């Protein structure tokens, strides 16, 4: 019990450090005890009927949890999946009014709010709404958490199978990553991740990743010119690493954790120029057919026990206070999941750029794809 407490304390301390980086708006200082069931509990719907339509990333929700949710609430879950934030945006913008809960990332939530695609749900008034980690309050995309509840969050770094490819252990930075030229090396097909990593590798500071200075992008494009991975894809590649067809890859920390569970020699590398921290969310789009069911679903997922179960499935940490008590020990001891203290300074939020910068990202990214 004592050791568990200590573990939790160090965990919380690590998180507090992330806070400083995540907060761009003035965060509220509420510490938020989990499950406080506050004042609005009476008005909050508790059990529903019918269905809740959720729209999530592929392989990003535990099927057993869905069964459990239906058993507890009587609400059936209809799941559709997407492979990029942009796909989700396209569906919502096209007036697809049938999703109750969607799972976009930070910067995408901001855009969806600007485009008036989301409903105000005031997550902090939910029975479990008081249980948000401080890191997940006052976030730049939704400072008051009016539109979005936290789901998983994680970083994008490098996964390296040190046994199958010992040379990848020498990768210390994004610059190494782009220039090392090892076989069986895979990249994510993600414009923001690839280009921001290249910008970092050519000396752009984390705070400056949305620059519109073209010379910076020119340098990044030059670096990418020689970068020819074996595969460029949007999938997590867990099976490919286990099968041995991929040994080094740009990877999310959670999928790296899932690789490590099967292949212990897989390590997660924190590149020295820094890495992106992203946070996914649960939002309710305008025109959702069943607002009550959506709220029940989101609140249920914000229960520490359920949030922990999702973390155990996905390999990512979540934004709910008290969930770490229910998390697998392997999660808490994995430096991919729990950021080591000396790596904390490397982490900064995924850049949320305006159209001008994003066009430059697109240009660098498509040029690189065209050179393959």
């Amino acid at each position, binding site marked *: 019990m004592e050791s568990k407490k200590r573990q939790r304390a160090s965990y919380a301390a690590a998180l507090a450090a992330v806070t400083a980086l995540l907060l761009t708006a003035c965060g509220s200082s509420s510490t938020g005890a989990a499950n406080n069931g506050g004042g609005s509990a009476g008005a909050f719907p508790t059990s529903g009927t019918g*269905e809740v*339509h959720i*729209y999530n990333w*592929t*392989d990003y929700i535990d*099927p057993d949890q869905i069964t459990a949710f239906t058993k507890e609430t009587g609400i059936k879950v*209809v*799941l*559709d*999946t997407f*492979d990029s934030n942009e796909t989700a945006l*396209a*569906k919502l*913008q*096209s*007036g*697809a*009014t*049938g*999703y109750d809960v969607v799972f976009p990332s930070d910067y995408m939530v901001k855009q969806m709010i600007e485009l008036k695609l989301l409903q105000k749900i005031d997550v902090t008034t939910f029975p479990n709404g008081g249980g948000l980690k401080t890191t997940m309050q006052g976030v730049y995309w939704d400072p008051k958490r009016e539109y979005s509840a936290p789901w998983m969050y994680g970083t994008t770094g490098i996964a390296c199978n040190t046994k199958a490819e010992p040379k990848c252990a020498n990768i210390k930075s994004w610059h190494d990553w782009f220039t090392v030229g090892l076989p069986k090396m895979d990249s994510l097909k993600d414009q923001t991740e690839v280009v921001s990593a290249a910008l970092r590798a050519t000396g752009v500071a984390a705070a400056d990743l949305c620059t519109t200075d073209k010379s910076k992008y020119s340098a990044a494009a030059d670096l990418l010119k020689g970068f020819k991975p074996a595969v460029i*894809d*949007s*999938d*997590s590649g*867990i*099976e*490919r690493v*286990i*099968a041995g*067809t991929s040994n080094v890859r740009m990877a999310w920390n959670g999928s790296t954790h899932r690789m490590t569970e*099967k292949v212990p020699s897989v390590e997660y590398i924190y590149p020295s120029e820094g890495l992106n921290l992203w946070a996914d969310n649960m939002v309710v789009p305008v025109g959702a057919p069943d607002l009550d069911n959506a709220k029940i679903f989101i609140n249920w997922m914000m229960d520490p026990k359920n949030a922990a179960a999702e973390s155990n499935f996905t390999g990512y940490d979540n934004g709910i206070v008290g969930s770490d008590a229910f998390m697998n020990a392997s999660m808490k001891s994995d430096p991919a999941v729990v950021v080591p203290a000396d790596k904390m300074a490397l982490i900064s939020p995924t850049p949320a750029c305006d159209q001008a910068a994003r066009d430059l990202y697109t240009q660098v990214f498509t040029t690189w794809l065209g050179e393959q």
Partner: protein
Amino acid sequence: MSSTIAIAPKRRRLVNLRNFRGFRFISWSVLAFLYLPLLHVVIYSFNSSRIATIWESFSTRWYVKTLHNTDIQRALKNSLQVAFVATIFSTLFAVLAALGLVRMKRAGKTISWALIGAPLIIAEIVLAVGTLAFFIAAGIPLGKPGMMIAHTAFCIPFALLPINARLSQLEAAPFEAAADLGANEAQILRRITIPLLAPAIVAGALLAFAISIDDFITSFFIAGPGSTTLPVYIFGMIRSTVTPEVDAISTLLLLFSGIVLISSYVLNRRRR
């Protein structure tokens, strides 16, 4: 043939073209090439390993998982619903087009054929994103009704293929006889044309069904809430974690296609 035998001694060798060197080998290799990947899918659907490419041991665990997966059941239901509606309407439209276009004047005919043939020659992705843009502009919600409309459109040329072929083979005699006996157009249509076309209509409907149920690209772009079809679902699985579950679903789908094919074959035989 007897004369062939008579002059045989003068020939260097008898019946040569059937035995072009290597043709048999190439043919069997090509057939193996066509079927080995499918065989691999079927075999590896019984793989106990989590890794789809590495054989571990025999197991039916992925079938158990597939059959208990409610998302797959829903995707199958969606696929069947869309394919069913698209088959009925595309076959109906195809029959109307086949009957009507035969006597249409030249200009209208060219445009009509161009529209009907468009899904055959224009890349599917072009029509898919065009349809997406159209649905958004017209305020048609993404989802099953829209998918049924789009599937109907690109199934029409396939449904039309056998119907049109049959129509051009019809003999004039029964029609002339009917007309001589005083039958009007509607009677001829109902009593002669449609019965004569029936096998082709069934064949066209089956083609349309096969095209619709296998469609991925269009469905991917215009799917809406709760309308994920089986191919779209499988694509998502291939994108994320490739377990032998993909092989298991695929094998079930192969089995399904097989049943449809065999029943159509049996149906055809009975009719004869």
